[in-house]
């Protein structure tokens, strides 16, 4: 069930109430039951796969720890269990292609919880973390429903201690969570869902669309993806806060990034920091004798892996490849860029850098979104300012109403992100008088209700 559905609201209300009426021990079971129902509601097979992977991880961690104590073969156990997890994940990913059966569905959330499992096992193997002995705690770490579908990919060091002593949230934490949920709804319903059908339309009919339509779709897709995915994440974190849990942030004002390297410290942070810690650092440590080249090779491997994480197919590999290439190029050209900055002034340089970073990301997303690499190349080759009949095509079919709603929402979101990066807007807002606060609440809720696009409940990152 999606966050934006009657079923989910019901599930949430029931378990949220229960959560506050059971004792300390009961809370874990309430959350676990909620997660079980949430996952099983999609498909019981998804629940079984997730449980199997969790149980496997639970056992493997304990075995690794014991092997460490006895100083006998932790490396072997670690590498074989990691291989099992990855093989299992790849197996599901490619099952469609290997067997040729089309009815096979990739289990929802698997990419996310498999990565959590690998991270946790690695921490145990590095002896940074103790293996979790309470099965229910580890299950919660793996399966918590608010982060199950599309992350954030949590670290065991962050989430397990919270799971150990679950306690209901304080009142300020709950209201904070509610506000985050509303922010997420605004992003999703007032922006992403409004523009999505038109961008999809251009991508679906790229061979008949005009150059300027391709151009607009390419420019707008990052906005859609951001509104969709960060909207989902806001909701996940908000729901977590209602249960007294603090989940990791996933986005930090990404479109303000001046370089692609910086962009990836702000975009899908829980994934990018995961690949940084568990893939890039070991790799670059291994290759550090090669100096700059070692970094470059590690970067390429890391980002191609990050691309492939999104799905089977060359398109995602190219998407990752582009990120890696750009970052390597940025490392090599730092001197020149510093000179340019001195020459044209800080302000202008920052503005141009932000635009450049956005455009590179937009172009790479064409590979992310297109069905095949050749489609993506066709798309990029045909971007132009040419129209079929008139300049009106620039709205890619969106009505004025949609342009106004989505445009003003985008502006609001960018402002919100900007102020959030300068200090917590929500906490400052708390200091306003009750009249101001409630007026704003009513305006926002009413805007969502009146102008939101309901009916499409799927989030983009659900497929990964």
């Amino acid at each position, binding site marked *: 069930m999606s966050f934006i559905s009657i079923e989910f609201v019901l599930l949430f209300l029931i378990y949220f109430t229960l959560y*506050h009426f059971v*004792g300390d021990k009961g809370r874990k079971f309430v959350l676990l039951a909620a997660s079980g129902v949430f996952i099983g509601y999609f498909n019981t097979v998804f629940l079984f796969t997730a449980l199997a992977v969790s149980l496997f991880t639970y056992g493997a961690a304990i075995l690794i720890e014991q092997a460490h104590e006895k100083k006998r073969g932790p490396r072997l156990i670690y590498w074989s269990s990691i291989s099992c997890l990855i093989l299992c994940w790849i197996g599901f990913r490619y099952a469609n292609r290997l067997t040729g059966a089309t009815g096979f569905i990739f289990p929802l959330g698997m990419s996310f919880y498999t990565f959590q499992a690998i991270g946790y096992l690695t921490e145990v193997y590095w002896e940074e973390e103790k293996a979790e002995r309470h099965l229910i705690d580890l299950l919660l770490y793996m399966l918590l429903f608010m982060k199950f579908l599309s992350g954030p990919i949590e670290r065991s060091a962050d989430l397990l201690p919270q799971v150990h002593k679950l*306690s209901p949230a304080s009142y300020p934490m*709950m209201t904070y969570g509610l506000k985050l949920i509303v922010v997420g709804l605004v992003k999703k319903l007032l922006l992403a869902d409004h523009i999505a059908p038109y961008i999809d339309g251009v991508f679906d009919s790229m061979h008949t669309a005009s150059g300027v339509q391709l151009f607009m779709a390419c420019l707008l897709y990052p906005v859609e993806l951001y509104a969709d995915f960060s909207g989902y994440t806001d909701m996940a974190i908000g729901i977590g806060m209602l249960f007294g849990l603090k989940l990791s942030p996933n986005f930090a004002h990404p479109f303000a990034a001046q370089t692609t390297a910086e962009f990836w410290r702000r975009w899908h942070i829980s994934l990018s920091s995961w690949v940084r810690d568990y893939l890039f650092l070991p790799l670059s440590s291994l290759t550090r004798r090669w100096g700059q080249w070692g970094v470059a090779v590690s970067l390429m491997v890391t980002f191609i892996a990050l691309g492939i994480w999104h799905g089977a197919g060359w398109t995602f590999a190219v998407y990752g490849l582009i990120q890696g290439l750009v970052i390597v190029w940025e490392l090599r050209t730092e001197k020149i860029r510093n000179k340019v900055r001195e020459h044209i002034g800080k302000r202008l340089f920052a503005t141009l850098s932000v635009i450049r970073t956005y455009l590179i990301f937009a172009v790479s997303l064409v590979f992310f979104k297109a069905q095949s690499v050749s489609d993506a190349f066709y798309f990029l080759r045909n971007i132009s300012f040419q129209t079929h009949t008139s300049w009106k095509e620039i709205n890619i079919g969106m009505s004025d109403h949609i342009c106004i709603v989505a445009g003003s929402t985008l502006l609001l979101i960018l402002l919100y992100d900007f102020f959030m990066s300068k200090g*917590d807007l929500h*906490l400052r807002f708390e200091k306003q008088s009750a009249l101001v606060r409630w007026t704003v609440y009513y305006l926002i809720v009413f805007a969502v209700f009146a102008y939101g696009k*309901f009916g499409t409940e799927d989030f983009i990152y659900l497929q990964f």
Partner: protein
Amino acid sequence: MKNIPETITGTNICQHSAFLRLVRKMMLFAIPFWALIALYVYDDPFMVLRKYDLYDSDVMLNEHHVGWQIYKNHNDSVHFNSFILGNSCTMAFRCKEWEKYLDSGDRAVRLFGNSESIKAISLKLRALDREGAEIKNALIILDRASLSHFELLTGARNMLPAAISGRNPFSIQLEFIQAFATPDFLYPYLKYRITGNVERNMKRMNPYGRIRDSKNNDAFNPREKQIQQEGEAYWKNRKKEFPERDGIVTIAEPAIFQKQRMVLDEIMEVLRRHGTSIRVIISPDYNQKELHPNDRKILQNIFGKENVYDFSGINEFTKDYHNYYEPGHYRPLLGNKLLERIYKDQ
């Protein structure tokens, strides 16, 4: 997000109170919304929550819904077997006039939609088919815009009722509530509820009172009355609405492509099964823009050459401005002439 207030790890009583406080606040916060929903349910402004005998309202209703309800209300007693389908120009074709040209006992009803898409026509025919209706005669009124729409229109005023589209009725009701909550509608509506008057500038409200026949959904255009009162001055005073035509033949861009064709085939599939007597009319357009010959040819191929009547372009019907309410709509006066023309050979 660094400064988020910490979780209070206090006693159970303390935790309980936070939860109850939240519940209390939420209840308080929701009062205006409950009030609005209560008003909506009580008023049912779009007449979609309950069934009615008469579909007259001070609010602009969803014509698909109204047409379908009128059909359902009377079908048991009347047994409709003839259907006027198409866009708002169907207003020029009165059911009683049409029945004159049909076999005795044939009864007609108008199931139209504003700027109707051919997809909607296809779905309506299928819904009739599912209902077990006999589709003996069909009069389909189209123009270029309708032909080009192969997808359904959206929005509360244009979406099809669940019985026709097969969509989830719940999500359709939700869209109606949403339309109610849109400030464009809600504020004028609340004003109307307080004063009891429909003002001319109120969007999505109907200041004209009765605009349709409750038995067969025939249109009563309030402009007909204005024309009677004003006479020739009706057109003289509206020179802006009726620009001079230059008498040069212009041909519209083609409208029918692969996807439109598929929908037209869907329509024909149902009609063929019922052995329906078909008349497809391309409306006489005041601007005298002619339908593209390729489009006409496709229509003739699908529906039969003798069943397609294209009145667009420059001809005796479009020449006389007296035939028009405004450039977009023509009068039953002209509709009657067209009926006479298309049934002349019988």
